[in-house]
């Protein structure tokens, strides 16, 4: 095993591209959203709150993105008991709500997008539209 390996990293430009597509999708759906994009360390890269989006979603969309990056999977898929445990041990950072997906390139998670303010289905739809804008990226589905 080598000591150091090359790994893809999501740039600010990549995050901006995903963000722009997600906003276009949310606007087309008529559902104002809070949208957060984090890197593979769960650190915030980009955030936008659209006019009319819920204030509570500022935090939840970031935590959804964090959850997707650390689970390397879409959020909202964990069993109820496990989700409560995880929420407790992470002091609420783990959120078992739909609306986030990992951003994957070459089978590696390079970040995640979390969306909140609509229904879980609407949130996920916007998240996936964002990832679809990044050439070569998949969304852990």
């Amino acid at each position, binding site marked *: 095993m080598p000591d150091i390996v090359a790994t893809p990293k999501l*740039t*600010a*430009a990549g*995050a*901006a591209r995903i963000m722009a597509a997600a906003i276009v999708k949310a606007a087309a759906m008529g559902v104002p959203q809070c949208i957060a994009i984090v890197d593979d*360390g769960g*650190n*915030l*890269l*980009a*955030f*936008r*709150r*659209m*006019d009319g989006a819920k*204030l509570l979603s*500022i935090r939840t969309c970031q935590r959804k993105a964090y959850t997707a990056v650390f689970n390397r999977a879409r959020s909202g898929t964990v069993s109820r008991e496990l989700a409560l445990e995880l929420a407790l041990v992470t002091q609420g950072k783990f959120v078992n709500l739909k609306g986030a997906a990992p951003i994957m390139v070459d089978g590696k998670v390079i970040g995640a997008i979390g969306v909140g303010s609509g229904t879980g289905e609407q949130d996920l739809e916007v998240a996936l539209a964002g990832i679809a804008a990044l050439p070569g990226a998949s969304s852990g589905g």
Partner: protein
Amino acid sequence: MTDVVPTLRLTAAGAEKVMAAAIAKAGALGAPQCIAVVDAGGNLLAFTRMDGAKVHAVEASLNKALTAASHRARTGAMPPEVGAALAMATEGRFVNAKGGEPIAVDGHVVGAIGVGSGTAEEDLAVAVAGAAALGAK
């Protein structure tokens, strides 16, 4: 005193203008930054971490913006002892460092921008450039 008064509100489009101007200024300075734009209530509207900006500055930029919105004034001007007391009382959300600038339109603070990752002077210059983009008076 009337019960309800009209007020000015910063929109997502306005926040985008502030963000774009701030990113342009940071790029020109060669200082990658974390930049946060909040509304008058201190709630996040837009955030960007430029390539190379410090991860640590994510939180700092948010809190500088919150501080500028809350005080309706440029950050970093408090005497150190007051600044430390306020930081403790607010669990670190009050930040007595440069880089937070209120966004004022017609003398009314509609929000604020917080910038972190560069030197204090770079942070301030980027925040001022962002706030100025809105045709602020």
